[in-house]
């Protein structure tokens, strides 16, 4: 086993990996940018090194600097988290060359299955259905041809795309030419690569993904699915596992398909196959994410496995700790992604300082967060500041629990999408899970208005008292020193609390 791991990431995922290492007795090395000197991942790590200015291309994306830091600190393995360099085949290869263990798949596997078109090719070769479309980059003319074959509506996608950028839905011939131009220019601007391909547009489908885990001895398992259809701007907002839409039979079929693709790619470590599932339960391979997902905790809560520890063990050459037939799903888990953004102002990002923070407590909660009272949420990185994950004995309890927890969660100083989550969780379409990837957008199109003001009058009073008491001494109750209970002993008997 490794004695020191460098975490090439920041935010909640870096903290998540550090905690797993601590529980495994492995030393941790954090890297940070100038904007992150006081970040929680720096505080919690055993060692921390500055790797550059705030912009990620000059810090968290600097391969040479990170590898050099691993050397300097004597770390023998690197965990990339998600985002940043996690799916970067070159980074994985550099680690391999430098004799550092990249905690993830081989650079070869990333190349084989990580790319959008290469993944589609591999899947269809493995006999797994993919969304009808092309499996390679196209010229404008080829696009027109492809559209004739596939039929409208279609999506033009940037081969190098991601983050919901570089895609255009085309529903009429007339739109085609301009859509091609627009996508190419956006793609070259956003990803420095104008390559595009075409897929049939599957509209009212669900986005459901399968978690796979593969060791270096050829063992591959699937760990159930995650329902990820609730998206805004193609970005996941609320995920749950299991999916209310998936029955055991569909789970098995999708799981086995995912394992097939993983085997075809000689895949190792944690990976996720994204599928589109249509109302009649046909599923189509979309793409594979060759790293840990943001929403991995919901899979951990229903399977009882710690995926990060599993990743580390696999990278150290150990055998998978479970066989497929040992995997049982228990209960139901839901994750709400809490972003620093203003849901009532077009989800405008809201960087700044956390002025007040109170995290919910009690049964069935898990909070994956990198914020603390007094910390800053910088403008330079993703606005994900916390993941509220709950477990319930069944979906009903999980929903009730996440609502309860959101009502306890206080984050002031920056605006958050907590009110948005609370509204979504109350929607009958969510409760009955009558959703697809378009649902959230179409619901949002109606517009989102701030709190209806159930507590407006109380808020007005609280604010006034806050200002009022700042000027005067406040009545803060204190344990009455000296004044002591005259019947301790009676109380002692009836309490006897410690005897439990």
């Amino acid at each position, binding site marked *: 086993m490794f004695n020191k791991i460098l975490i090439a990431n920041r935010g909640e995922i870096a903290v998540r990996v550090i905690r797993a290492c601590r529980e495994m007795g492995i030393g941790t090395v954090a890297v940070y940018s100038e904007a992150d000197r006081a970040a929680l991942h720096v505080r919690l790590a055993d060692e921390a090194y500055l790797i550059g200015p705030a912009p990620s291309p000059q810090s968290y994306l600097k391969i040479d600097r990170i590898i050099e830091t691993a050397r300097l600190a004597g770390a023998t393995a690197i965990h990339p988290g998600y985002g940043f360099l996690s799916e970067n085949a070159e980074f994985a290869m550099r680690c391999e060359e430098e004799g550092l263990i990249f905690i993830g798949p081989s650079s070869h596997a990333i190349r084989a299955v990580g790319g959008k078109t290469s993944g589609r090719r591999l899947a269809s070769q493995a006999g797994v259905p993919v969304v009808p479309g092309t499996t390679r980059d196209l010229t404008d003319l080829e696009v027109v041809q492809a559209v004739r074959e596939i039929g409208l509506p279609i999506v033009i996608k940037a081969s190098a795309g991601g*983050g919901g950028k570089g895609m255009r839905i085309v529903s009429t011939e007339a739109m085609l030419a301009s859509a091609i131009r627009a996508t190419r220019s956006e793609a070259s601007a956003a990803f420095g690569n104008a390559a595009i391909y075409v897929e049939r547009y599957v509209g009212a489908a669900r986005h459901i993904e399968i978690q796979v885990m593969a060791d270096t001895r050829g063992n591959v398992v699937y760990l159930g699915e995650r329902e990820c259809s609730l998206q805004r*701007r193609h970005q996941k907002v609320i995920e749950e596992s299991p999916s209310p839409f998936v029955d055991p039979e569909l789970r098995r079929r999708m799981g086995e398909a995912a394992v097939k693709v993983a085997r075809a790619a000689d895949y190792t470590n944690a990976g996720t196959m994204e599928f589109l599932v249509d109302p009649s339960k046909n599923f189509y391979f979309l793409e594979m994410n060759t790293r840990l997902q943001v929403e991995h905790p919901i899979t951990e809560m229903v399977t009882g496995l710690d995926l990060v520890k599993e990743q580390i063990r696999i990278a150290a050459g150990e055998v998978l700790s479970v066989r497929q037939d040992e995997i049982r799903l228990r209960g139901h888990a839901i994750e709400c992604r809490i972003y*620093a*953004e*203003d849901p009532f*102002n*077009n*989800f*405008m*990002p*809201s*960087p700044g300082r956390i*002025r*007040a923070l*109170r995290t919910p407590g009690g049964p069935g909660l898990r909070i994956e967060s990198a914020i603390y009272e007094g910390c800053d949420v910088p*403008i*330079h*990185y*993703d*606005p994900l500041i916390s993941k509220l994950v709950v477990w319930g004995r069944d979906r009903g309890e999980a929903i009730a629990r996440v609502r309860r927890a*959101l*009502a*306890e*969660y*206080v984050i*002031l*100083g920056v*605006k958050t999408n*907590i*009110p948005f989550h*609370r509204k979504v969780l109350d929607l009958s379409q969510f409760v009955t899970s009558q959703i697809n990837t378009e649902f959230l957008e179409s619901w949002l199109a109606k517009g989102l208005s*701030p*709190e209806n*003001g*159930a*507590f*407006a*009058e*109380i*808020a*007005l*009073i*609280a*604010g*006034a*008292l*806050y*200002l*009022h*008491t700042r*000027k*005067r001494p*406040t*009545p*803060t*109750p204190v344990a009455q020193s000296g004044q002591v209970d005259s019947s301790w002993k009676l109380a002692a008997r009836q309490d006897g609390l410690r005897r439990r």
Partner: protein
Amino acid sequence: MIYSADLQGTNHKLAVKGTGSPVPVEVNGHTYEVDFSAADGSLLSLLVMGRSYDADVVEEEEGVLAVWVEGETYRIEYQEEGRRPRRSTGATGHSVSGRQVITAPMPGKVAALLVSPAQEVGAGQGVIVIEAMKMENELKASRPGVIKEIMVQEGAAVGGGDVLIVIE
């Protein structure tokens, strides 16, 4: 102490009639007996007619409070009786005149300018796109007008509160 409070464009009159707790508080003419306790910092507990309310308050800028109550957060601008009004806040600030000043709601970069000088714009029309935290954010005109001034170029870095566009 008497306060004038602005919540989502509506003005409310408040009077805190005394000190200590419980204290009578008048809101829009209705008086409540409020039993309250304030811990260090921002936490407040209110008891009004037996109902318990958990509250957390921070001052975002002078006189502008973010008030969290039972899971809901309200942004309220307070003025003490006899103090001169402060400018209101929000992504798009307007002065009393027909003038609209579009300011950057957060630090970022001008991803796109959607209008040109002298162009007419309608209410809710997007005028500029600011990119921050890996997202593009369109700022809209709150009511019809004509683009008077554009103070930034595409690609320019802007700080929170910077004036971007003036509409008349």
